[in-house]
Structures are given as structure tokens and as C-alpha cells.
């Protein structure tokens, strides 16, 4: 056996694109986007955009799809492997019931019809990351079909997007083209840790009419999969991957135009941008009387442009046929119904509950439930600090802003619900002001320190000591006689200026209410 755990078999360098890309292009900050000029927009507007998305989602399960290897990420290569997922002679696949249940949940969440009888097929082709020389997938009969989900269209109206099929399949391994030090090597290495990880492929109907719709479809899909507990859908980690098919046609046309396929988009923003880029390219071609040709293009995140991978004249021949080593999947109507009844609460449902139980405005409920993590975070905070609207303001506002900047999900932030509750309690007890709290959140979020520690280390505790404040108030009054006169003359705004001076003197730490009281007392008194 020339394969040991922790080591990689070597193969001749594979020049084709890495089919799945890891973290490398996650958000390198703002990149110049090719601006669409007014004239260009006019050209694009002449055509109707038709987009369909193929989304692969890694299922959350304990084990791989056909063996008992753990389904979790490890950095050491070929650690999560066994003779079955390495395709050793004589081994046979054994379907994980857990993965089937997850795929069933996904199908039901997406309003699909569930096939009571389906089976696995083999998709035959050679690639070094595929141990058996074929991928086990559902080709002829998908588990779920004819589903839909709802998004807002570009006019803000609710629109149904068809989900053509949801089917199960196994993931492939990964090819490594450089050593750990980042040095290029003249061969490729294969890491089979991911081989056999359960995936579902979700194929939309070509119902999407703009890059914005495509992005909202993905966001909705991600939220639904997270709510159903089917996947964590982290695009930057590859647990959600998206390919797009895009074509243009004249609005009056029935037939679709020639489509191209876009690959290698590693964020929702990349999906939107690559689609915009491709729509513009196709529109310009058509406008010059040229033809779009069937191509597979890959999105280059650094250069913000597409690169032709291959132009295919005809579709690949995967020679699909039913896998003779697996028995068909047979479900009863009762099993499907039970799964439907046991579906977890979905976003819309949860939003309604937030309005009803916590008295939140509809807007807040919508924002908080847009991601399951965020909604979970909100409710965890609420357990520790039961003032829904205040928690909502902070979670939706400051906290979400930090998350977006860092490109994190709520459950990845080191600023935990406990930290949030501690912060809010400090505001509530008037130990710090709201303004200082923002500063504390920022520092705690960055450093991972507890908010109270940040306050103590930075000396940010609010000054509520009357004698200490009186001295400052007296000084401000004596230094600003004009303003004091204005106030006495009836200009109530002048008081605000004086409060501001006191706050400035205390670097924002003074208790504003107390400062107000003291000023009024001293001047009027």
C-alpha cells in the first residue's frame, strides 16, 4: 500500500483548475470593480438576463456518505480516510442514514416533491482526486424535485424561484499543488480527507433575471439550509459552492440564448460581480452582432475578471448508470410526512415569533432572522439580558457591522452573547455610556478580551462621582461665560454645548444625566 495516513500520493502535476478553492481569495478588501457606464447599461437593458444556479452544499453529519470516517475538517492530509473512501478493491459503499435524513430535510425545506423511490448512479470519469474513478451521485432520479423558494425581485416584489432538483452525491478529494511552505512543486499531491463527504446539489430553474436576484436566491438558500440544520453553508470554507449558468435573450424571445457556465466564485459578492461581468460581456458581443459560444469560465477574484477554462462543443459523457453496489432508497409516505412535521423553525416563522413574543418591530425581526446564527446569537443574549429592543439594536447595529467587516458569522466571533450581555448590563447600570460602549465593543471584538476588562484597562468607567464632576462643571461654567449667558437668556440649546464641554474634559466618561443636572443646578441655582 503506497498510501499512509498523513501522507499524500503524488500524481503528475494537474494543470486544470483546482475544482474547489479554499480560503485564499476571501475578501482582500475593496477591489476596483469595472464600472458600468450609462451607455453600457443601455446595451445591457435591451436584453433579458437568464440565470440558473447549481449549488453544492456540504451536509452536516457525523460521518461521510458511504463510510464511517468523520465528516469534519482536519488539516493533516489523508487522516479522515479508510479503505472504503479510498476506493480499495473489495470495499463497498454503505449509505449513511443520517446523510439521507439531512438531504430529505433539505428537500422538504425547499418545498420539493420527495421521490419515495430513488437510487444512486455512478458518474464515470477519471480525476486523481476521485478514488473510485466514478462519483456516486443521483442522476436519473433525484431525491427532491419541483421545489421552490421565494425571494424579492429587483422591484421588491415577492417572486418564486423554481428548484428543479435536489440530489445527494459524494464529494471528491483535493489536489495540492504546492508544499506547506507555499513552494510550487513539479507534481500534484492528493488529499482524500474530503472524498466521500456528503453533498447535496441544488439546481435552480432558469428563473433568475439579474445578478441581484441570484445573490438574494443564494442568501435565501443559505438561510434555509442553516435553519433546517442541514449545512453551515460557509462559502469561504467550501461548504457552499456555486456555479452559475447565464445567457441573454431578447425580451420577446421564447428560446433561451447560448449560455456560459461560471465557476470558482468564493463569496456571494463574487457571484454577483462575476455575473455582472459576464452579462456585460455577452451583451456587448450580441450588440456587435457576434455570437456567444458555449464556454466554461472561471472567475478570477484578484483580477476581477473571467478566464476561459474550456470551450466545449458537446456535453461531457459521464456514462451514468445505477450503482450496482447500493440498494435503492425506498421511503414511505409516512416517513416523509414525519420528516416534514419535524422540520425546524424556518426564518419567516421565527421572525413572526420575534415580533409576537419580544415585541420587536417587523424590520428588526427580519434582519435578525436573516441568518440562523444571528438569530441564535440574539436569543442567547436575551437569555442573559432580557431587554429585547436594546439587544436587537446592538446585535443588528454595532455587532453586525463588526461581523461584516471581519467577514465572520455570528458564531465565529470571539465576542460571545455573554460578552454582549455584560456590555449591555454595564450600560444599563450607567457604568458606561452608550458611546463608550461602542468603543468597548470594538476593542473587545478585536482583542477577544472581556468587555469589563477592556473598561478597566482603559479606565473607561463612567464618572458618577458628584464631587469629581462638580469641579469640572464649575470650571466649564467659568470658562464659558457667554454660553452661560445665552442659556440664562432662554436658549436651551446652549446647555447642550456646556454638557459637551464637560464630556470632552472627561473623555466621554462623565455620566451625561448627572452632568445635566449639575449644570442646571449650578447655573439656575
Amino acid at each position, binding site marked *: 500500500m503506497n*498510501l499512509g495516513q498523513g501522507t499524500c500520493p503524488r*500524481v503528475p502535476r494537474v494543470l486544470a483548475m483546482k475544482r474547489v478553492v479554499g480560503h485564499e481569495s476571501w475578501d482582500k478588501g475593496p477591489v476596483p470593480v469595472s464600472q458600468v457606464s450609462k451607455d453600457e447599461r443601455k446595451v445591457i437593458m435591451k436584453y433579458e438576463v437568464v440565470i440558473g444556479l447549481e449549488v453544492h452544499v456540504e451536509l452536516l453529519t457525523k460521518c461521510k456518505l458511504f463510510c464511517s470516517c468523520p465528516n469534519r475538517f482536519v488539516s493533516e492530509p489523508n487522516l479522515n480516510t479508510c479503505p472504503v473512501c479510498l476506493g480499495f*478493491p473489495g470495499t463497498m459503499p454503505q449509505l449513511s442514514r443520517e446523510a439521507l435524513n439531512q438531504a430529505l430535510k433539505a428537500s422538504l425545506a425547499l418545498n420539493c416533491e420527495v421521490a419515495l423511490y430513488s437510487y444512486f448512479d455512478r458518474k464515470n470519469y477519471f480525476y486523481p482526486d476521485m*478514488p*473510485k474513478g466514478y462519483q456516486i451521485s443521483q442522476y436519473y432520479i433525484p431525491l427532491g424535485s419541483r421545489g421552490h423558494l421565494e425571494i424579492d425581485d429587483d422591484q421588491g416584489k415577492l417572486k418564486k424561484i423554481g428548484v428543479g432538483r435536489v440530489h445527494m452525491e459524494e464529494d471528491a478529494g483535493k489536489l495540492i499543488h504546492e508544499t506547506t511552505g507555499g513552494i510550487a512543486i513539479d507534481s500534484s499531491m492528493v488529499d482524500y480527507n474530503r472524498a466521500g463527504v456528503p453533498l447535496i446539489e441544488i439546481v435552480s430553474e432558469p428563473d433568475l433575471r439579474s445578478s441581484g436576484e441570484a445573490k438574494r436566491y443564494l442568501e435565501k438558500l443559505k438561510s434555509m439550509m442553516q435553519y433546517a440544520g442541514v449545512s453551515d453553508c460557509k462559502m469561504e470554507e467550501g461548504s457552499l459552492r456555486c456555479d452559475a449558468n447565464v445567457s441573454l435573450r431578447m425580451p420577446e424571445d421564447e428560446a433561451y440564448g447560448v449560455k456560459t457556465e461560471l465557476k470558482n466564485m468564493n463569496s456571494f459578492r463574487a457571484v454577483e460581480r462575476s455575473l455582472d461581468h459576464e452579462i456585460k460581456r455577452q451583451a456587448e458581443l450580441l450588440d456587435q452582432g457576434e455570437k456567444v459560444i458555449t464556454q466554461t469560465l472561471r472567475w478570477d477574484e484578484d483580477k476581477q475578471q473571467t478566464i476561459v477554462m474550456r470551450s466545449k462543443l458537446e456535453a461531457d459523457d459521464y456514462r451514468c448508470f445505477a450503482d*450496482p453496489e447500493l*440498494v435503492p432508497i425506498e421511503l414511505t409516505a409516512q416517513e416523509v410526512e414525519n420528516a416534514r412535521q419535524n422540520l425546524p423553525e424556518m426564518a419567516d416563522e421565527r421572525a413572526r415569533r420575534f415580533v409576537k413574543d419580544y415585541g420587536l418591530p417587523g424590520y428588526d425581526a427580519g434582519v435578525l432572522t436573516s441568518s440562523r446564527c444571528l438569530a441564535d446569537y440574539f436569543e442567547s443574549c436575551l437569555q442573559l439580558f432580557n431587554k429585547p429592543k436594546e439587544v436587537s439594536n446592538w446585535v443588528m447595529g454595532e455587532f453586525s457591522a463588526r461581523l461584516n467587516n471581519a467577514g465572520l458569522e455570528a458564531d465565529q466571533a470571539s465576542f460571545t452573547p455573554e460578552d454582549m450581555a455584560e456590555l449591555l448590563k454595564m450600560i444599563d447600570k450607567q457604568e458606561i455610556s452608550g458611546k463608550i460602549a461602542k468603543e468597548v465593543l470594538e476593542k473587545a471584538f478585536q482583542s477577544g478580551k472581556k468587555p469589563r476588562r477592556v473598561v478597566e484597562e482603559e479606565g473607561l468607567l463612567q464618572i458618577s462621582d458628584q464631587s469629581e464632576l462638580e469641579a469640572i462643571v464649575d470650571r466649564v461654567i467659568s470658562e464659558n461665560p457667554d454660553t452661560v449667558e445665552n442659556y440664562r437668556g432662554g436658549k436651551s440649546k446652549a446647555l447642550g454645548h456646556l454638557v459637551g464641554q464637560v464630556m470632552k474634559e472627561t473623555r466621554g466618561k462623565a455620566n451625561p444625566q448627572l452632568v445635566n443636572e449639575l449644570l442646571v443646578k449650578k447655573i439656575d441655582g
Partner: protein
Amino acid sequence: MELRKTSIHQAVEAVQQGEITAFELIEKTLKNCSVLDEGLNIFNSIAGIDALEQAKAIDQKNEKGGNLPLAGIPVAVKDDLCYGVLPTSLGSAAFNEFMSPVTAAAVERLMDAGAVVIGKTNLDDMGQGSTTLSSPGGPTVNPWQAERTAGSAGAAAVATGICMFALESDSGGAQRQGASHCGVVGLRPTTGRVSRYGLNTHCSSFARVGITAFSCENIAGVLDILSGFDERDAATAVCREGITEISKIPNSDKLTIGYPVNAFDFLEPELREVFEKARDEFAERGYKIAEIDLGLLREGLQAYYVIALIEASSNHARFDGIRFGKTGESEILEEMYQHSRAEILGKEARRRSIFGTYLLSKGNYDQYYRQALKVWKMVRQEFKKAFDQCDLLMLPAAKKLPRLLNEEYSFLDEYFEDLFCAPVSLSGMPALTVPAGQVNQLPVGMQLVGPPFSEKTLLALGSWDTGTGPLSQE
């Protein structure tokens, strides 16, 4: 103790009562083995010290009163069944030193029961064939006539008395024809009866793990141990429990034997005579004979090959040179594949991969694969219908006498020899090959085919005939 004249039951009793130790039994077997293997080319590898160690361990268990049902019984295992202790060659020269990380479920069960694997038996190129003629190590010689092939090395191992039974695999008839050519008994069990985990097969739809032995009684005892559910082979879900001992010989007045008249038309007259005699013998003993129609043998054979070739092209795709076997030298991926596969797959395996790829390619699916699936279904129905008219069917096992080693033949000729076995594989039903007679001093076997899970009846009828009856004139 002469193994050929002893039943497994008697041998186990002898070991358990201390008349002979497992160690002695295995030592003797191994000696026999090295002598006989010399001229016959039965084994790809022989266990030696490992087998003796195992035998010692069994003796120790025995002293502590462990009632192992196969204590110390030597078994030969076909080399497409993975076994972690000896190399698993799969019928490929590139795998001569391959140590599988897996041990086949059936081998595990036998070892747990106290059986000792004495060696891995020869097989065709990647297990594809019913003659051993395409084996990278050369064919196994028939113990009856040295200028002919044995058909199956496991059958030869049993026929020579080297071991008491052999673990075999059978897709299109290798095991059943081998048993026929060597004059022994071979059972291909019902689909789902015995776990196939650890069997490297070119054809998952039809490959079964079977047992070849000298008597039906021996087979029954082993089948009991092999039967049953194994979560690693989903098909075994239909067989939650094993079978118990074979019942008494079924009452002759209650059993109807089906005689498919048209099948025997494919045979040369001297072979045909053997089966007509057997039929008459059955009738004399009071069994009812029902003439039935099996009109789809030829179509069944064709469908079998379409499916088997297609599955081979896919099953053997894993032999890409990256993880096991030999890695071809090249800086270019496609060339590396080509070189690796040329080393791993022999001529016959390559031919089958290419045919299978072609048959499944775009435009051919409907014409070949879909049609083959239809025929598969029709054959199943035809057999099912046959069992409305009879309890068991008799069929030839092989179309001809075993091949001469130096005979010129085309691959299509060889495929055509599976005419009586491949359709039975399609039916999914159990089949037992028992000796039926002789032609030119060579044994000729008969297949007894029954409805699903009718192994008990098959073995009962088979044991009655092979033991004393005229069907086994040696």
C-alpha cells in the same frame, strides 16, 4: 485422516476430541499443498507459518473448551477475496504483493469459526473468465487430465483433497463450471445470502461468494456460518438469519424437477446423454419430471455480458495507479493513467473495460444497456414462472468439456460457455453444481437451480445423488 473421505463434521469432532490437533491437520495440509501445487498451479500464495500459528491458537481455544464449528478446517480462498494476511492478487500481476487493508466478510466469518486459510487460489485476469486461461500466472491444470484446464482453482484444490472446502466467487459461472470440470460440488447462493464485502469483483450485480466442497453436507455446514446480514453489503438485508442443518431428503413424490428441453439442444450428443440419463434416474426414483421452456438462455447470456462489461469498465476505473497496484512512469497525467492501467489490467481485462466503456457511451445506452436491463427482468420472470411448474430445475453447468490448455479459441467462444450459468446469475436464484456423470473420463456437472433461499432443498437433493447414486460414478 484423509480429507477427501472425511466430512467437515467428522474432522471438527476429531479435533475437538483431541484425536488430531488443528496444528497437525494444517501441517499435513500444507505438505500436501506444496506437493500437489507443483504441477497444477492452484495457488497464488500459500500461508505457511501464518496458518500454523492460527492452528496453534485454535488448539489453545479448543483446550479451553471453545466449540468452534470449523475448528482447524483448512480452506482455500479465491484470490479476488481480500485477506489481510496473504497478498491479494485480484488476478493482476501488478498486485502480486498487494496486502489488502481489508479482509472479506466471508473470510472473517470462516476464521471466527476456526477455519484456517491455507492459500489463495488462482483466477482469470482480474477475475474475468471461467477457465483460468487468462490468469497472469498461467492456468490451473485439471487434476483429472493434465492437458486440460481446471476451470476454477478452488475446485481443483477440493478435488485433489488439499482442503475440505474452498471459498469461491461466481458471476457468470466460473465457480459452477469449475465444480463441473473437477467433479466436485459448488454452491452459488441466493442473492443477499452471503456478504460480498471484501470481494473485488468486475461485476457487482452478479458476483456472489460461493462454497465449493466435496459433499453437500460440507457445503451446508459452511453456508450456515456464512449466511446472514452484514451491514457492509446492503444486499444482505434480505437475509437476517442463517439456515440450520439440511433437512432430510425431500420425499420424491412431493418434488417436481423441471427439465428445460430446449437447453439441452445446445449440447454435443455425448454430453446430452449424461443429462438424459440423470433425468431418467430422477424419474425412476419417483420424482416428477416437468418439461418446461426456458427460451431466453441466449438472450440472457447476451444481457449478462452487456451488463458485466459495463460494470467492469466502471469497477476497474479505480485502478488508476495512484493508491495501489503499480504506478506508471510519466510526467503527464493521461499517460500515467495509460501506463498504470496497462500494467494492472491484462489483455482480457483491458478488452472488457474498452467494450464496457463503448457500450455505455452516449448513444449506446438505450440500444445496449437499457435493452439488457429489460432482458434481465424478463429472464427473472421466466425463471419465476418456471418455478410455478416445478420445484427445482436441472441444467448443464458447462457447455463443453474443460478446455485443452493449448487450444486456440476466441474470447467470444469463451463467453458463450457461460450459456447455462449466466442466465441463472441474472435470475438471482441459488444454483448447485453436482457431478452428473462422465464423458471421456472427465467429470460432467449438473446445475440444480431453485427459487430464492431454496438452498436446503438443493443441498438435500444433491447430497442424495452425489453420495451413492449413479450420478457420481467416479
